[in-house]
């Protein structure tokens, strides 16, 4: 009973993530890959890797943006990496934010 309630809660949470645009179809693809195979921890593994990656990248971005002269090429490279991994896991909002961020890098807009 407790497991069923937890499952229902999880499904509701995932549904709200789709509804709010936080995740997109790619996240559904990952769920389907997990359901297809014999890897019940697949989605959790991918999400964990994404969070660890994102944490590392954001730390590096913070250091770069604190410099008196910002190396926008390096910033853009990190943002590009984050955009790629966010797109791969279906983290839509992060992906769109990265796209905007990359435009600011191209404009050399530090304040943006």
């Amino acid at each position, binding site marked *: 009973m407790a497991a069923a309630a937890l499952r229902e809660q999880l499904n509701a949470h995932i549904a709200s993530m789709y509804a709010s645009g936080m995740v997109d179809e790619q996240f559904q693809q990952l769920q389907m890959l997990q359901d297809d195979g014999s890897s019940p921890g697949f989605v959790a593994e*991918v999400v964990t890797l994404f969070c660890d990656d994102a944490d590392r990248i954001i730390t590096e971005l913070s250091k770069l943006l604190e410099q008196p002269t910002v190396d926008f090429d390096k910033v853009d490279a990190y943002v590009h990496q984050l955009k790629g991994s966010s797109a791969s896991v279906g983290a839509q909002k992060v992906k769109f934010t990265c796209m905007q961020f990359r435009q600011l890098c191209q404009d050399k807009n530090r304040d943006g």
Partner: protein
Amino acid sequence: MATSSASTEQQGRRRIVRVLLVEDEAIHQVIARQLLKAVGGVELDVAVNGAEAVRRVQERGAYYYDLILTDRQMPVMDGHEVISDRVGPLLARSLADSFLATRHRRSVQATRQIRALGVTTPIVGLSSDCLAADVDAFINAGADDFPLNKEKLDRVLTKLGIV
């Protein structure tokens, strides 16, 4: 249709598809592995950069791999360098019997280079990070399908007669 280099299983069994994944990021390795596992019947080798991919192709032979999935940007030789520079001819021969899938939008350039080598094998993009304009550009450059998911990968492999 190009002949596949996949080994032939016993009669009635599906052929094994030999795939070389060229990817340095763990998250993409994990996703690609699961995608290929879902397809089934795949032997997977992983190279973490273009130079290692070249070595693997040289060691295994031009016709060993049926499919090469490569990231556009990697440390130590990018994917497009793997295609077009010193290992271009070797990879082109391999590509005659397999097809190259590139992950990033700049794979449009790699696709054109491959076509310029006279390779007619279908080229498929493996990426969830694409805009409609990028998909069009990739297909206009000569690719066959983009982006890639399990259903499309299965369809393309079937279309090529690899599985």
